[in-house]
């Protein structure tokens, strides 16, 4: 088999790329970094097993998600993508606090507006 037709995974693993290679549809040869990250964090057999355990129609999404998580872990070896979860949870907390304050202000303004209307009517 021509070496140029190997997927990125088989190139990385220095092996023949079979026609039914589990990695080939999701790790094209033109993006070696993608499999390199995944291999570093999960190892090829874990990733292969993860994909194998899923229905074919879900494997592309799963491969993308695994790649994102691996990339995050390579860039941040301590927290990986969990850092982003933590940041988002903080953003949610802040936004909820601001929303509560804004709604309280609306309630106050609404009651002030009502008082003013009564005052103007009395004049």
């Amino acid at each position, binding site marked *: 088999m021509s070496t140029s037709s190997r997927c990125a995974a088989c190139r990385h693993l220095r092996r023949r790329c079979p026609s039914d290679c589990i990695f080939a549809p999701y790790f094209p040869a033109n993006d070696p970094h993608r499999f390199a990250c995944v291999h570093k964090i999960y190892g090829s057999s874990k990733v292969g097993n*993860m994909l194998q355990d899923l229905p074919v129609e879900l494997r592309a999404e799963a491969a993308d998600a695994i790649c994102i998580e691996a990339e995050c872990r390579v860039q941040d070896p301590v927290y*990986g993508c*969990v850092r982003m979860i933590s940041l988002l949870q903080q953003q949610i907390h802040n936004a909820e606090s*601001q929303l509560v304050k804004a709604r309280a202000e609306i309630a106050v303004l*609404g009651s002030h*507006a009502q008082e003013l209307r009564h005052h103007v009517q009395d004049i």
Partner: protein
Amino acid sequence: MGGNSPCASCKLLRRRCAKDCIFAPYFPPDDPHKFAIVHKVFGASNVSKMLQELPVHQRADAVSSLVYEANARVRDPVYGCVGAISFLQNQVSQLQMQLAVAEAEILCIQMQQEPMMPTPQIDPDDKSFLLQNNLPHQYLNFTSSSNNVIHDSLKRESIFGHDMVS
């Protein structure tokens, strides 16, 4: 050899738990599930490599985040943590929209209240009262929060190509 029981990792891997076992501080024997799930997703040798590459004071946090990711991956074998991130991003987006609506409502109420303010003995040719309201300041606040919504959504799009949670 002392009476110390092997850590959860060495129990699962069925090996002697050395004094300097890299897993022992983070995978106590009373919580076998913690290591089991990390081993299932990442593999013991990968976890060992990752921990060895980190300074000691960062390893506990690294283990916690690996356990979190592994749990997410077992719960959702397709999207794992990325599914959780997508869900939280949607929540942030919704909250920011609600906040923008609330801020707009505040602005409207304030604008509506202006004509109701009693203004005794105003000279109709004197326009100086137009400079006394705080409308420009409020408008700037509203604009900056709406810019944050746009900026945050752009940041999200640069990381994830598409919304993975329908």
